[in-house]
């Protein structure tokens, strides 16, 4: 039996904790207490699962990728279809959980940070559904790049707050959201989008995403009467990965987290936090991150906005250190190739984030035996990435 993490100090082994301005210690305490109470309350569980089912359409399907399996000629490949969630990715599971908690805490205003806009859309969505006011912090540069998602959030009634500090990307939007929360924590709930941030966020987001793994486990047993041999998930902040890994941590199942190698981990342009980063503190949590020799956080790069983050959830840092999870990295080009392959073989256009997990799985599947099985977390759909894909594939498909 593994030790239960996080511990009482909000740590996963050496990582996690609460590295935040004093002003946030109170609100984090309040959140932790509310979360503990909620998770012990069957009525909360019931409401959360009711909304997941009735509103987001859970359980999401487990799809056997027969054509990919035949094509690669190795392990049987299964896909956990988080792309079929309302709004198109796993992000909504967590947003629903936190929004319900916010209501329970009597907070009627939520704030969120977003990079590509997926978590922003999920937050704006639950804000609409549960009658909350919503501010989404988003870097100016990202606002420019993700015009459609910005409009979507506004249509949902959210306010999108442009962030000009730093480089105007996700890291800066997160800083700004935290700053806003510091000043307005009394009546605002900060809805973080991944298993990052100060305790209890990494734990809370994991617990609201573990439904992916819980369902997968049940569905896989039904389908194969065994657990999968390997599970793959892409890792940005790490929420879809923690969600699918967590219920399998104590099983004899190999878990593989896949980071973005961008233009290659031997170039400066990547987002491979565990592969290339070092321990440090980012956004309130001790974990691995990308930084220079002076401890200044550096800008990551990935073609996929959702993986373009210089940190990673502290639980991943722990699972990396203890070697319970293997972490690999995949370049932009490898991800694009895998995306194309899944599209033509299975008729599913995945998010570019997801394609990183696919690429790694497709590398390993042919080397596995035919009675082994693979489960890939299909964290989101590619609709949001069409502009990027057009840039890369327009000529090829003509």
């Amino acid at each position, binding site marked *: 039996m593994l030790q239960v993490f996080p511990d009482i100090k909000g740590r996963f082994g050496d990582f996690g*904790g609460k590295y935040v301005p004093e002003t946030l210690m109170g609100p984090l305490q309040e959140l932790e207490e509310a979360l503990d109470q909620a998770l012990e309350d069957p009525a909360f569980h019931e409401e959360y699962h009711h909304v997941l089912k009735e509103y987001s359409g859970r359980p999401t399907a487990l799809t056997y990728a027969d054509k990919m399996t035949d094509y690669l000629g190795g392990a049987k490949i299964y896909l956990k279809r988080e792309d079929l969630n309302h709004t198109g990715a796993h992000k909504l599971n967590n947003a629903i959980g936190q929004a319900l908690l916010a209501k329970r805490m009597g907070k009627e205003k939520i704030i969120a940070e977003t990079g590509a806009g997926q978590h922003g859309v999920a937050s704006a969505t639950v804000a609409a559904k549960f009658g909350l006011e919503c501010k989404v912090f988003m870097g100016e540069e990202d606002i420019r790049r993700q015009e459609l998602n910005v409009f979507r959030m506004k249509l949902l009634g959210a306010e999108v707050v442009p962030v000009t500090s730093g480089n105007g990307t996700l890291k800066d939007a997160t800083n700004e959201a935290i700053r806003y929360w*510091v*000043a*307005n924590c009394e009546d605002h709930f900060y809805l973080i989008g991944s298993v990052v941030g100060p305790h209890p966020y990494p734990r809370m987001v994991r617990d609201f995403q573990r439904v992916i793994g819980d369902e997968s486990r049940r569905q896989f047993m039904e389908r194969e009467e065994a657990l999968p041999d390997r599970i793959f998930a892409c890792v940005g902040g790490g929420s879809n990965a923690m969600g699918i890994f967590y219920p399998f941590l104590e099983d004899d199942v190999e878990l593989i987290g896949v980071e973005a190698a961008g233009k290659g981990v031997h170039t400066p342009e990547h987002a491979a936090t565990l592969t290339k980063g070092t321990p*440090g503190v980012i956004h309130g949590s001790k974990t691995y991150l990308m930084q220079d020799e*002076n*401890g200044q956080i550096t800008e990551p790069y990935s073609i996929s906005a959702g993986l373009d983050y210089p940190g990673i959830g502290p639980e991943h840092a722990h699972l990396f250190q203890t070697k319970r999870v293997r972490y690999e990295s995949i370049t932009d080009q490898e991800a694009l190739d895998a995306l194309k392959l899944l599209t033509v073989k299975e008729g599913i256009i995945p998010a570019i984030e997801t394609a990183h997990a696919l690429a790694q799985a497709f590398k390993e599947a042919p080397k596995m035996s035919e009675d082994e099985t693979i489960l890939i977390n299909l964290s989101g759909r590619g609709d949001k990435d069409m502009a990027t894909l057009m840039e890369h594939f327009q000529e090829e498909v003509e």
Partner: protein
Amino acid sequence: MLTKTSFQGKLTKTENLFIPFVVAGDPTPELTVEYAKRLQDEGADILELGVPYSDPLADGPTIQRAAQRALKAGMSLRKAIQLVPKLREAGVEIPVVIFTYYNPVMQIGHEALFDMLEENGAEGVLIPDLPYEESEEIRELAEARNIEFISLVAPNSDQRIQRIAESAKGFLYCVSTLGVTGERNEMSAEALSFIKRVKEYSQVPVAVGFGVSSYDHVKLVNEHADGVIIGSKIIRIIEDGLEKIKNGETEQALNDFSSSISTLIKG
């Protein structure tokens, strides 16, 4: 009360403390030394020397801008600490508190940090994202090295106020209102009653920061607390002079700086 003020014995005053904040290297290391001297001349009791950071969570836009300027000028935690001997050379004698986010500290290492602070003669350190619960090891080290680890306390610190206040060293940094650094125009009744509570438990002077930006503030704060910490407002005064400095009128800019500080502190 207030018997244990310290900074290696260099802080003897326990009232009406004026604790200015500047960012090391904003706009250049040399000018930081000049500003520090002027601040001491205007009556500063302790200097908070900020280390610029890429992701300063607890700071508003003014200090963010200053950090960007300083980072561009190549400043780092190591270099900021190494600026202390230069301050001394230039005649700055008041205690210096290094203000830095935790990540650069983690990269240097706790022992190495204190070695450097000692070697370079800094009297204190303040880490805004290292709350009480995460700072045990550092607090112990600080005590062993006789360097003041400055604690912060906020209105919503609630039950933690007593614990934090009781263990405070040097001075206790009181966050007057919720929020990041910046300028505000009022001080609420709640803020005042909070300060009162803090003072009950604190063995060191209680200084109030976050939002002090005018002589009226300074007066008001000093009526209830033991001193003021002023950051953003000072950065803004520095910014007012940047154009002149660019045009080579550095002396004029520094004189303007002094007179603005004087107005801020003395009315």
